[in-house]
């Protein structure tokens, strides 16, 4: 494992689920689900989709939580989604409040239908410096970066351009195989 580099474990951009900027959230969700089905049972599934601009450069990432978050109302009454927590309301109370609002407003199927009108750019996360790692970096550096930033994947770069994605699941699998080999199980 010592000699292995990030590029040895990453999923190349060409194999990763991508959509173009400007598409709807609904299209992104469908693309993500299709990509998951392609991988089948043997491989770890994608938990995110990359968004490309017109030059096929990565401009953002949408994970499952981002997609789900888009389906909850942005505001409840006069308050933003995260605002009540800032004012010291308990999580339990806020959940109850949201339940109350949901009962009075649109239901989940309708919310999912609304996703047609949402632009994927409005919900994606733009890449940030600490989320990126050079393709030649060693795996120990990648592990440190994932832990330090509390991330589930890193965007792999080559001369500043994103060329793939290194997933925690693939890294964990590599660690497992190393550990198993050392204990003689493989």
């Amino acid at each position, binding site marked *: 494992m010592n000699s292995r580099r990030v590029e040895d474990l990453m999923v190349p951009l060409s194999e990763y689920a991508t959509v173009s900027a400007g598409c709807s959230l609904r299209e992104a969700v469908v693309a993500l689900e299709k990509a998951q089905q392609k991988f089948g049972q043997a491989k770890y599934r994608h938990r995110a989709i990359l968004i490309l601009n017109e030059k096929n450069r990565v401009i953002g990432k949408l994970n499952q939580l981002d997609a789900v978050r888009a389906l909850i109302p942005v505001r409840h*009454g*006069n*308050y933003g989604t995260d605002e009540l927590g800032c*004012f010291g*309301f308990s999580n339990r109370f806020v959940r109850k*409040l949201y339940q109350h609002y949901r009962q009075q407003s649109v239901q989940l199927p309708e919310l999912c239908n609304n996703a047609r009108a949402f632009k994927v750019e409005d919900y994606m996360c733009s890449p940030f410096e600490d989320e990126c790692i050079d393709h030649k970096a060693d795996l120990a550096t990648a592990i440190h970066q994932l832990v330090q930033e509390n991330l589930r994947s890193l965007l792999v770069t080559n001369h500043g351009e994103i060329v793939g994605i290194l997933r925690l699941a693939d890294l964990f699998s590599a660690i497992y195989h190393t550990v198993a080999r050392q204990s003689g199980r493989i």
Partner: protein
Amino acid sequence: MKELLKLYRRIVQRVNINLREFNFDVEPLICDLVSFDELEKVHGFYAITSQHPLDFQFRDSNLAGSYFLGKCRTTNSILYKSDIRGDEWKKKGTVFYIGDFQIPLTKDEGIHIEDSLFIKTLVHNFSHDPETPERFTISNTVSAHYANIHGSPTDGTFLEPFSTIDLTTVNDCIIGAFSYIQAGEINHFHIKPGTVWVRSAGTFNFLYRYPADVLHRYIRFYPGSPPQGIFVEFVNKYKEAFERVFETVKIKSAFAVPPNTSLDRFAAIIPKISIKDNVLVAQRALLQNSSLGRGANVQENCFIINSNLAGYNVTAHGAKLIDVDMEEMVFVGFNSFLSGQGCRLTIGRDSIIMPHTIIDIQKPLHIPAGSLVWGVVTCEDELAANSISLKVLRQLEDGFCRGNLVFEGSGNQFVSAFQSRIQHILDANGAFYDGEDNKGHAQKNQNISFNIIQPYSEGSKKGIYPTIIIRK
């Protein structure tokens, strides 16, 4: 460069440094609010009584039109037409009870204002911060018209017009116009305009925010222009009534009050007025064609017009009543605006009108006894949406939401906390004085002498007051 201009720039820079995380610049908001010409001309004044500490230290400050009582220190500050009222101080030799702490006090509590600029702001002491019980400090802070800093140590903060911080330690915050905050301690928080937040951690949490379009009619505040809206138009209508009051140092009141009542000589009176025993009318309050029953109090910047207060009523700092009839023991919170203009608003006994409430009706409206009212009420339907019976609220243990109000926690403890505070205010103001016991501000604030202090009238220090130390 003139010292006064240097001082102004220094304060602006201090506030901006403290609020840099918000990328905030206070200068465009305040640059045209006060004229330097006025700052250089208007005198400040302080009160002397046998009932209060006499301990003033003014250093490198401008105090134009400001009033000081008690133990107050200012350094590198500009205080314009503000009231620094130290008449409810924690006393040397007593014990300050807060939370689980019993803190012995070795000095009288003093108000320390440093590197700050206030415009028509009220500061009232009895800070509730256990960390500095004898020193109530406000530093690196700018406040705009009719802001209230009530027992709230503050650093690096901007208070927009008609905002209130009450019994809350505030660090590096922006408090939006007409927001009321009573939350113990807040840090690095940008509070949007029209937010009313009362929180006792682990016990209750009350949050209401005005709809932006409604608030806009009453108060709006943008860079490059003074505050605008119904509140400002209302206050400006009565400017002249105060001019006569402040023109001369010695003025004899044309209106006789009972001997156990205090009618401040800097209050404006427009007959006909009736005032009963144990009443407190503070400076910069205005009374017109109204009656105040026994034990009522009218605090700084309150306006009572064509209204009747039956007795034991609290009208907190900045509240305005127009065509209102209040039964006994009604509490009207800070900066509330209650207008029954053209009709009558009647408020039943023991009701609590939350701080920063707007009741502005076109038809007569009766608020039932024992109600809690918040937000904006213009008709019966809105009263139903923005009020609750105190009896019902006491039974709620798990919170509720109604319109823009979100309430979590114990309704019973919320009501008890308010009622206990109302009782304390009445007591501190002398409402229950029986001729011997229970003296309060109404009795202690009667024989006050006022002295004026003036700045340098020429040279580079024009507008700066010389260092002045006044002690018993």
